[in-house]
C-alpha cells in the first residue's frame, strides 16, 4: 500500500497545487485576435503592399528573437511561439505606413525584438514598449519613408496594385507618379498649414477627411477606429486588460483638446479629430496597455494613461512631430517604475501609507454585514 502512495521524494512542490487554465500564450493570442479585424480592414484598405509589409515585419521580429535566443544558447522554440514576438511585430506593422519599403519593416522588427526586448533579458524584462521604440527609431532615422502616407486604395479596386506589383511596391518603393500617394495625414496637414501661417478655420475644409470607418491615409492598422475600439472592448470583456489605461488615455487627449479648441478654434483642432487621428485609438487599447511597461495598480494605470494622453496632445500640438502617441508612450514607460514605486494598493489592515489601522476605532464601527 505504501508503495502505491509513494510520490516523488525530491524537492517539495509548494502550494497551490492547482492553477488557472490561462497562460501567457493565451493572453497573447487574445490580443492578436482582438487586433485581427482592424488589421484585415487595413489589408483591404491599402492592398497587397500592406500585406507584404505585415508579413515581413512579423517575420523579422520573430527572426530577431530567434537569433537572440540562439546566441544566448537557449532553446528557441517554446519562447518563440509564446506569441510575444509575433505580437510585437504585429503591433509595429500596424503602426507603419502601409506602403513602406520592406527594409523599414525588417529593420523595425529586428530592432524591436533584439535591442528592445532580448537585450533586456526577454519577455517581461524590457522597460520600453518594443514596438513603439522601433517605430520612434524608424521615425527619427527615416522621416521621409515613415510619413509617406497613401490614400486608401481598396484591394478590390482596379487601380490597386495586384499581388505582383504590390510586392514590387514593398521591395522597390512606391513607383513615381502613382497618384495614391498623398502628402499627409490630417495632423501633419494641419501642422504644415499652421507653420505656413494658415489658420485652421481656413485650412480645415481642404484637409483629408476623418471618420470612424477609417477610410483615410494613415498607418496600416490605425485608421479603423471602430474596429480597434471593438477589439479593445473584447480585451476588456475578456479581462485581458482593464479599462483604466484606455479610458484615461483617451480622456487625456480629449479633455485638453476640447478645452483649447473652445478657447481658440483657429489654432487648436477639436477633440474628435484628435481621437480619430493617428494612433490614438490603437495606442489607447493596444500599445499603452502593454503589461510589461505599464503600472499594475488601477490608480497607477489611470495616472499612466492620463500621462500618455496629455503628452500625446502636447507633442501633437506644440512639438515638431505631427504624431505623438509613440513618444508619449515611451515617455510614460520611463515613468512607470516611479509610478509603481509611489502608487501602491492599500494593504488590508493598513492605510495607504502602510500604517496599521487603529484597532479601537475599527472595533467601534457598527457591524454591517451585507446580505448575499
Amino acid at each position: 500500500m505504501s508503495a502505491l502512495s509513494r510520490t516523488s521524494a525530491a524537492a517539495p512542490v509548494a502550494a497551490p497545487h492547482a492553477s488557472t487554465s490561462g497562460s501567457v500564450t493565451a493572453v497573447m493570442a487574445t490580443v492578436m485576435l482582438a487586433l485581427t479585424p482592424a488589421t484585415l480592414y487595413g489589408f483591404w484598405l491599402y492592398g497587397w503592399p500592406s500585406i507584404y509589409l505585415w508579413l515581413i515585419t512579423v517575420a523579422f521580429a520573430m527572426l530577431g528573437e530567434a537569433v537572440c535566443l540562439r546566441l544566448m544558447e537557449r532553446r528557441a522554440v517554446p519562447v518563440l511561439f509564446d506569441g510575444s514576438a509575433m505580437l510585437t511585430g504585429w503591433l509595429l506593422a500596424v503602426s507603419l505606413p502601409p506602403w513602406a519599403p520592406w527594409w523599414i519593416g525588417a529593420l523595425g522588427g529586428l530592432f524591436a525584438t533584439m535591442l528592445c526586448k532580448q537585450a533586456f533579458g526577454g519577455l517581461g524584462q524590457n522597460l520600453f514598449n518594443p514596438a513603439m521604440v522601433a517605430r520612434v527609431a524608424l521615425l527619427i532615422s527615416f522621416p521621409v519613408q515613415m510619413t509617406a502616407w497613401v490614400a486608401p486604395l481598396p484591394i478590390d479596386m482596379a487601380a490597386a496594385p495586384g499581388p505582383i506589383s504590390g510586392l514590387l511596391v514593398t521591395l522597390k518603393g512606391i513607383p513615381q507618379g502613382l497618384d495614391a500617394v498623398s502628402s499627409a495625414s490630417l495632423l501633419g496637414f494641419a501642422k504644415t498649414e499652421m507653420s505656413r501661417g494658415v489658420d485652421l478655420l481656413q485650412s480645415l475644409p481642404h484637409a483629408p477627411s476623418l471618420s470612424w470607418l477609417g477610410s483615410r491615409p494613415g498607418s496600416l492598422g490605425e485608421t479603423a477606429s471602430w474596429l480597434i475600439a471593438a477589439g479593445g472592448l473584447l480585451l476588456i470583456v475578456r479581462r485581458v486588460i482593464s479599462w483604466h489605461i484606455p479610458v484615461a488615455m483617451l480622456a487625456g487627449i480629449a479633455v485638453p483638446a476640447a478645452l483649447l479648441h473652445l478657447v481658440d478654434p483657429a489654432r487648436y483642432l477639436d477633440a474628435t479629430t484628435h481621437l480619430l487621428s493617428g494612433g490614438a485609438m490603437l495606442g489607447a487599447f493596444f500599445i499603452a496597455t502593454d503589461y510589461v511597461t505599464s503600472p499594475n495598480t488601477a490608480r497607477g494605470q489611470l495616472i499612466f494613461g492620463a500621462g500618455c494622453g496629455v503628452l500625446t496632445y502636447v507633442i501633437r500640438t506644440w512639438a515638431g512631430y505631427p504624431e505623438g502617441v509613440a513618444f508619449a508612450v515611451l515617455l510614460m514607460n520611463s515613468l512607470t517604475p516611479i509610478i509603481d514605486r509611489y502608487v501602491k494598493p492599500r494593504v488590508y489592515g493598513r492605510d495607504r501609507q502602510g500604517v496599521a489601522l487603529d484597532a479601537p476605532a475599527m472595533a467601534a464601527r457598527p457591524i454591517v454585514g451585507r446580505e448575499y
Partner: protein
Amino acid sequence: MGLIDRLFKDPAWGVHPDDHKRPAADQPLRVLPPPARLYMPLQQHVGGAARPVVQVGEKVLKGQLLAAAQGNISAPVHSPVSGQVVAIGEVTAPHPSGLGFTAITLESDFAERWIDADAVADPFSLAPEEITRRTAAAGVVGLGGATFPSAVKFVLGQRLKVATLIVNGGECEPYLSSDDRLMRDRASEVVDGARIVMHAIGATQVLVGIENNKPEAIAAMQLAAAPFAEVNICPVPARYPMGSDKQLIQTLTGREVPADARAAEVGVLVHNVSTCAAVHQAVRLGRPLVERIVTVNGGAVREPGNVFAPLGTLVDELLAFCGLHEAPSRLILGGPMMGSPLAHGKIPLVKGASGILAFDAREATIPPAGPCIRCGSCTRACPMGLLPLEMAARIRHDKFDEAAALMLGDCISCGCCAWVCPSHIPLVQYFSHAKGELSARERTRLRNDASRRLAEARVLRLEREAREKAEAALRRKAERAAAKAAAERQETPGETV
C-alpha cells in the same frame, strides 16, 4: 449570481477556482474502523509540544490523556483508540520538509472502550472559566487548519470583551467538504458548540458564515439555528479565500483587522465550525478531541468522500479505505490552495487535517514557470492588497528586506496569486522562502544580541575576578603580614603584657 452581482456585490479580491467538491461532498459520511496501529504526534497545534504522561507498554482507553499540555500555548493529546502504548518515537511530520517529529505509537485492541465521560447536562450553567478549562483539557484546537489552541482564544475573547462570535463555515478550499458534511449531518452539534463558545467568551451574537455554494449546509444550519435568535446564518459569496479569518470578518462585519492587531481587538473572534462541534463534544459529552471528519478526494481516489477517522491514522490507511485507481502523483494534506505536499503516505492524520488529496497525474501537472509578464493578475487577486509580482522579483534577487518593505509579512499565503499567474510562477514558494529567511535572520539577530550580552557579562566577570584576585592577594598579604607580626609578638611575649 448575475452580472450585476459579479460587478458590484462580490468582493474584488480573490479567485474562483473550480471547486471539485462534488460528488465527494454528497457522499454520506463513512466511519473508518480503528486501524491496528496509530501514531499520535505530540505537536498537532501551534505552541509547545505536549509532554507524554504514559509509559511504553501501558494500556490506555479511548480518550485517555497521552500527553499533557506544556507551556502557556499548548494542547494535550489523547488516545484515539483503546489499546496499548507500544513506542514513543519519531515519525514523518505532515510538513513539506519531510522531517520527523515525536509521536506516541498505539496498538488498538479494537474494543473502542471510552474513558468515563465527565458529561455536563447544562453547559450554560457553568462559569466561562470552567468551559475554557474543559475545552483546554479536551485538547481542542482550531480545526480549520490554524490549530491554535481554542481555549487560549477564549481567554483572549473574555479579556477583550468580544461581542461577536464568527463561526467560519466558509470552507473555500476546492476539493474539501469536511465542514460541509459536518454542517449537513451534525448542524445541531455545531450550533450548540457555537452557543457554548459564545457563552465562554461572553459574546452576544453568533454569525455563521457559509459560502453560498453549500445550499444543503445552509439549509441544515438554518433549521438547527431557528430556535436561537442570537445565532445568525449568513450565506457569503463563494470566493476563495472567503474561509480566511480576515476576509470573512471583512465580509460579515465590514471591519478590518489592523495589520498589527488580532481579530479580538476589533471585537470579533473566529472559530471554525469543526472547532465548535469539538467544543460541543468536549463540554456537553466530556469527550476529548480524538477523531475528526476528513475529506479524502482527488483524481486517484476511487470512492472520494468524507471519512470519520481517529487521529493518528496513517494517510495510507485512509487512502486504502477509500481505494485508489492509480498511484497518486501527489499527496496533499489540506486543500489544493494551501495544503502541504506529503512525501509519502506513512504520515499520521493530525487535528488540523481537513482533507487528504491524492492527485492523479493530470491534476498534479502544473505547467513550467515562465517569466513574469507583469500582467498584474496577482495584484488584483491578492485579498490582502499586496504586490506579489514586485515582492517575488525582489526575493528572486535575495532582497528580502525590500520584500518586507512591501509588507511581505502581511501575506497570508492563500495562494491566489500563484493560482492566477498565467506564467505559473510559484509565488507562494518565493514568499515562504523569504519569510523563512527573514525569521532566520531575526533569530540570528536575537542570538547576536544575546551573545553580545554574554560577552559583556564575561568581560565584567573577568574584571571582577581580576579585582577579587587582586583584593584576595592584598588580603593574603595583609594576613601574612599580620600573622608575621603576631608570630613576632609571640616570640617576644614580654612586650605585649
